[in-house]
């Protein structure tokens, strides 16, 4: 019987052929913790009596949620991870000196490799599937189990095949494709399943689009999102290898068999897609931008950033639209590059000047505003267009605030107009 790419990754790790539905226990190639989830893992690790990490070179902590500390409690919480990192002399500990949002930073550092099995105590860990890895979010105790034993247990997921056809039109990005898919599936339509993106449209999507698609697999309830390695992935990996002086490990490249078993196939014609706007209060409330324009939605804040859309392409798209323009009088704009490297690259390209001159405030990399932590909280009744991943009640601040999820072009164009507009009309 044929296998999906996900079944092949697990088979390779188990050492025998496995299929969807089987429970397997495998070693983890990269375990990811952050400043808010790892303290619970560290407590469990220490209570277990374990003295050292089972596989220290396959473990990382990225300080990204409330760093630099937003208050005394966050500062104290950060100390727990720092002390652990120093005590265990962690090879992969990323703090303020080398900061970034985990799901942008780790691929950038060459630490995510095709064929990996990755877990992270962060639901957006599914992002890394864009590099042909199996990657999923878990809780802190599962992370601790990985720290103690080096592995964890999984039910090999069934796969939904997502066939993307056609050439994406102007201002159609990975974000629109994933919002459209979540609209079709609903927020629990892919529960326990892997989403495998295939089809001829993939060749037109760069790595930043692919990260953004796999990133939001969780918003359809999926366990993981995955895209097989192609020449675009390979070019990305070669660059990572050059920049970082090597990759963490040698890629193991798998492809789904033609007779692989899929539990569902969904086809999306990318050619005829409009930019998608997810209305409050679920990521599945996607509507074409034309509808949003008709609804005349005035906005108080625009936020470009997060593990979903805070990458260099997002800043390029925004800067191109905002050059020599000005953010509307009653609107404010926050740009949060996802890593320091992205911020520096944007500086070299002159993008930061353009954005600041247009009236945006550019922050350090952090998850802060996206999850309503700090650096851009919404007040009562305020409306925000965000390139982030969730528009739940109160997600970015007040219970009565509203978040409209969109791509970076919609966000930038809307900032100038002070209301949601179609970037293709500019």
């Amino acid at each position, binding site marked *: 019987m044929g296998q999906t790419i996900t079944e092949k990754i697990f088979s390779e790790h188990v050492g025998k052929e496995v299929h969807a539905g089987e*429970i397997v226990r495998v070693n983890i190639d990269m375990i990811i913790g952050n400043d*808010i*989830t790892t*303290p*619970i893992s560290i*407590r*469990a690790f220490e*209570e*277990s*009596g*374990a003295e050292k990490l089972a596989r220290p070179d396959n473990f990382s902590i990225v300080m990204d*949620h*409330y760093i630099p500390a*937003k*208050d005394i*409690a*966050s500062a*104290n*919480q950060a100390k727990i991870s720092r002390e652990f990192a120093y005590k265990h002399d962690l090879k992969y500990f990323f703090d303020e000196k080398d900061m970034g949002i985990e799901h942008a930073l780790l691929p950038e550092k060459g630490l995510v490799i095709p064929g990996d099995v990755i877990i*992270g*105590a*962060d*639901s957006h*860990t599914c992002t890394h599937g864009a590099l042909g890895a199996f990657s999923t*979010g*878990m*809780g*802190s*105790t*599962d992370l*601790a*189990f990985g720290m*103690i*034993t080096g592995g964890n*247990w999984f*039910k090999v997921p069934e796969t939904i095949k997502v066939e993307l056809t056609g050439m994406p039109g102007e201002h159609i990005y990975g974000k629109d494709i994933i919002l459209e898919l979540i609209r079709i599936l609903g*927020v*629990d339509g892919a*529960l*326990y399943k892997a989403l495998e993106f295939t089809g001829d449209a993939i060749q037109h999507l760069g790595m930043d689009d692919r990260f953004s698609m796999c990133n939001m697999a969780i918003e359809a*309830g999926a*366990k993981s999102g995955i895209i097989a390695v192609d020449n675009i992935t390979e070019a990305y990996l070669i660059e990572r290898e050059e920049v970082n002086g090597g990759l963490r490990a040698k890629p193991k490249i798998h492809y789904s068999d033609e007779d692989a078993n899929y539990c569902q196939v969904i086809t999306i014609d990318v050619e005829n897609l409009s930019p998608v706007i997810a209305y409050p209060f*679920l990521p599945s409330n996607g509507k074409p931008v034309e509808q949003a324009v008709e609804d005349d939605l005035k906005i108080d804040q625009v936020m470009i950033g997060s593990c979903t859309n805070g990458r260099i392409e997002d800043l390029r798209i925004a800067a191109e639209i905002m050059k020599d323009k000005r953010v509307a009088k009653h609107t404010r704009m926050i740009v949060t590059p996802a890593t320091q490297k992205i911020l520096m690259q944007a500086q070299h390209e002159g993008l930061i000047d353009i954005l600041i001159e247009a009236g945006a405030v550019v922050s350090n990399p952090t998850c802060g505003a996206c*999850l*309503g*932590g700090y650096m851009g*909280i919404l007040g009562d009744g305020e409306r925000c267009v965000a390139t982030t991943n*969730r528009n*739940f*009640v*109160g*997600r970015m601040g007040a*219970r009565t605030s509203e978040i409209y999820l969109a791509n970076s072009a919609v966000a930038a164009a809307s900032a100038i107009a002070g209301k949601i507009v179609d970037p293709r009309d500019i």
Partner: protein
Amino acid sequence: MQGKVWKFGDNIDTDLIIAARYLNTSEPSELAKHVMEDADPQFVSKMGEGDIIVAGENFGCGSSREHAPIALKAAGINAVIAPTFARIFYRNAFNMGLPIFELKEAAEINEGDVVRIDMDAGEIINVTQAKTYKFTPIPEFMQELVNAGGLIEFAKNEIKAGA
């Protein structure tokens, strides 16, 4: 276990269970003060020790924060009953020792009903309505973890066996 029911709708996400603005600590007693705050700001003052939450589909969707089951447990919620749970929340609840039960007929239970859960018989009894339901049994492999006393106890046994 037996308790009074509080009802919630579909897709109760982890931001509603415990908002991220409170994640500057993982202290259970602090998190408990804000449980379900964005779903119902009065919830903490209304609920009592041992109460049971009955919700709709996909309870616990969203983030992986284990603070969510921690907050529910520390606030004194005895159990959560829903037709389906989001994947990460389901695993976290087991790992944290918060009892959760999949029940297709959850919608038939009303707010204020008294519900008893008989783990051995695999039954949920609505005392108020005098109705008995069978909850979906937990997967066999997860039962092994429960029998071991949870995931970390399971790991401890392995450390001992290896030593």
